[in-house]
Structures are given as C-alpha cells and as structure tokens.
C-alpha cells in the first residue's frame, strides 16, 4: 500500500524534471531537486533502512520533516513580496526551528515528532494563506491556472488542511482502524502530488518568470 506514495513521488519528480525548462527562471526551480530529494530519502534510504536492514528509521524522518518544512518556508519567503508578510514567515521559521530542536532534545528519538509536525503544518498553512492573499491583489490572478506557484500553494493548502486534523487524531485512528488510516494518508498524498503534477503540466513558461 505504501508503495503508492513512492510511485507518486517518483512520477512527480519525473514530471518536474521533464518540464524543468518551463520554470527554470522562477523561484520554483528548486522544487525539482526537492522532489528528487523526497523520493530518494523516502524510498531508497527510508525504505531500505526500514524494510531491509530492519533498523529504526524514525530519526531519519524527523530530520526529513525538518528539512522539508525549512524548504517550504524558504520558498514562501522568496515568493512573498510584501515586507511584513516576509518578516512574518521569517519569525515563524525561527519558532519552528526552536520547537523542532526542542523535540529532538526532549522527545524519544524513536517517536515521530508529531507536535513539531503539526506546528510546521500550521505555519505552512498560514504562509499559503498569506501567499493567496498577495496573489488576490495582484494582476497574476488573470492567468492563475498557468502559474506553477499557484498549483504548488494549492497542493500545500489542501494537504495541510487535511493533515493537521489527521495528525491530531492519528493515534486514535491507528488504534481503531489501520486501514482507514492508510487510505486517508494515501489520499492526502494523491491530492498533494496531483496538484504538483497539474502545475508542472499546465503552467506556461511566460507566467513562471520570477
């Protein structure tokens, strides 16, 4: 079941590479490397260490979550134009780093940093809303469906809106219905990577200039 997510990650990374020319001049250009990083870490390292070596790989995922959130925040910091909004992103990132380091020190290394994950998702959601707010007052809105940043932000919005209650509820869910847990997790990932893919396919080069 979990392989579906790996396949999605792989396909999206392939699409990102295939359409790289479209967005190579924009702030989204780092997404290609990021998507490969996600795939390699999740599938090869995570999968290999977890399934074949049968060792504990939770610490790796905790680092992975830290890196990926920092990546998203820095992306939002780059694309936001309004000074106060930019600074807000910076302040939130700072809090997130402190929060996550605190989790590394205090929490059990064999446990997922659920609290840090939820906190990061909330910040991510706030950044997305700030970005949409800025987009609404700009002229880019006319060709919205052709801009990659819109699709990435939409993907993150939907993913995080689903992920936050899901993570809060996760322990009860795992205990009562493992299958449902998997279905929700996979569905959220399908939404995330579908939005990414639509963005890579549909966006046009002329609207992806920074």
């Amino acid at each position, binding site marked *: 079941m979990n392989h579906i997510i790996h396949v999605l990650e792989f396909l999206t990374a392939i699409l990102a590479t295939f359409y790289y020319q479209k967005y190579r001049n924009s702030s989204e250009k780092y997404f290609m490397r990021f998507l490969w990083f996600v795939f390699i870490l999740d599938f090869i390292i995570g999968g290999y260490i977890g399934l074949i070596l049968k060792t504990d790989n939770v610490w790796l995922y905790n680092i992975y979550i830290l890196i990926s959130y920092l990546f998203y925040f820095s992306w939002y910091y780059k694309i936001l134009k309004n000074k106060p909004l930019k600074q807000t992103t910076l302040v939130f990132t700072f809090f997130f780093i402190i929060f996550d380091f605190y989790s590394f020190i205090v929490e059990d290394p064999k446990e997922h940093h659920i609290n840090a994950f939820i906190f990061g998702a909330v910040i991510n959601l706030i950044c997305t809303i700030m970005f*949409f707010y800025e987009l*609404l007052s700009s*002229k880019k*809105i*006319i060709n*919205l469906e052709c801009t990659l940043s819109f699709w990435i932000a*939409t993907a993150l*919005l*939907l993913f995080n*809106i*689903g992920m936050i*209650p*899901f993570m809060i*509820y996760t322990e*009860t*869910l795992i*205990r*009562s*219905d493992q299958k*449902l847990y998997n279905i*929700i997790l996979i569905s959220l990932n399908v*939404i995330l990577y579908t939005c990414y893919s639509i963005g890579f396919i549909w966006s046009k080069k002329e609207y992806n200039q920074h």
Partner: protein
Amino acid sequence: MEQEGVQSALIFTSLLILLMAFTVIILFVVFQNRKNRLLKEQKETKKRFEREIAETQIEIREETLRNISWELHDNIGQLLTLAKIQLQSASANNLKEVSETISKGLNEVRSLSKLINPEAIKNINLKEAVQLEIDRFNRLNFIDASLKVIGSEIQIDKKSSIIIFRMLQEFFSNTIKHSKATKLKVVLEYTADQLLISVSDNGIGFSISKNTNKGIGLQNIENRANLIGAKALFLSEQNKGTTLNIQYKL
C-alpha cells in the same frame, strides 16, 4: 468500545472530506470572483481610454476648425479686402501691387488647405503635425517658433501621438493667448527607450505655488499624460517663461 472507535473514525473521515471540499469550493469562488472583477476593470479602463482618444481627436478637429475660421476671416479675408481696395484705385503702375497681394492670398489658401486634410488628423504623425503648427505660427507672425529634433525619429503609437499632440496644442494655445511670449521652442528628443519632449516659451509664466488648485488646462495636460503612461512636468516662474517636459516611454 471497538465499535465506537470505528464509528468515530468514520465521522472523522467524513468531516475531513467535508472540510477539504469546502476549502476547494471557497478557493475556487474567491479566486473566480476576483478574476472576473479584475477582467471587468481592465475592460472598463480600455473603454475609457478609447473614449478619451475619441474626445481628444474631436478636440483637435475643433481647434483646427477654429484656426481655419480665424485665418479665413483675419488673414485671407484681409488680403482680399486689400486687393479689392487696391483694384478700386487701380492704375497702370499699381497693378503689380494688386497681383502681389492676390498671390500672397493664394499662398495662404494653399498652406491652409494642408491643415484641413482630414487624413493628417486621423493618422497623425507627431513630428509633422508639430512642424505644421510651428510653420503656421511663423507664417502668421504669432510668435517666433522653432522645432528641433534630436536623434532619429521613431514612429510611436498612433493613439499616443494623438494625445501628445493635443497636449502640445493646448500648451501652444495657452502660450499664444495668455503668456505674451515672443519665442516658442519645441525639442523632440528620441532616445533608445523614450521620447523626451520639451516645450518652452519666454512669456510671463506663472508661479506654481500660487496655483495650488491647478488650472483646468494644466490638470488636463497631466491627466492626458497619465492616460498613456507618460509623465508631464511643468516648470514655470513669474516673468521667466514656462516649460513643459513630457517623458514618454517607447
């Protein structure tokens, strides 16, 4: 207990689906609304621009008609009257004078017919139009006018030409009517990315600080400049003349 857990998990899932569907709908509606509004605004701006162009064209035409009427009455009419008087007291030796007066009148009629050409008003060429105006001022001895072109002439957008020409025309008529100036200088400077126009007279000028509520004419010129994305700047001092600088991005 088991049953309850499953039930609450199902409730949770449906709420989650509802939440996400709601988000998608909100997102779509908000963005679609905003997009439609922006498109409508753009359409209206375009419409207003077109209307302004049409109005400006009419104004240019009116001004031309006024000039023609003036010339017919005060210039050509006077010459013909003079010829008539000369003919009434005609003798063998002053016939040459009469002929001179009449040919002067003919010349005036010819240059006037150039002005009336409707094609010239419709497809305005900025440099030629300004040149015609300046020639007219010199011919009628209104003012000592000159035109200088720096750089090679670049054809600019027809609609912008109409607006710019009307701005200049308004400045000229202010200069002639109110400023008591004796000299009028126009400089068109074409650079790689912009057209700089500088018009100056040596008339009585006005003090900018006194005219806090700018005269309608000045306000008009500035509004017109905004319309085509140009910048208009007045420089004036009492008794030292007035200068208008227009900066138009090509």
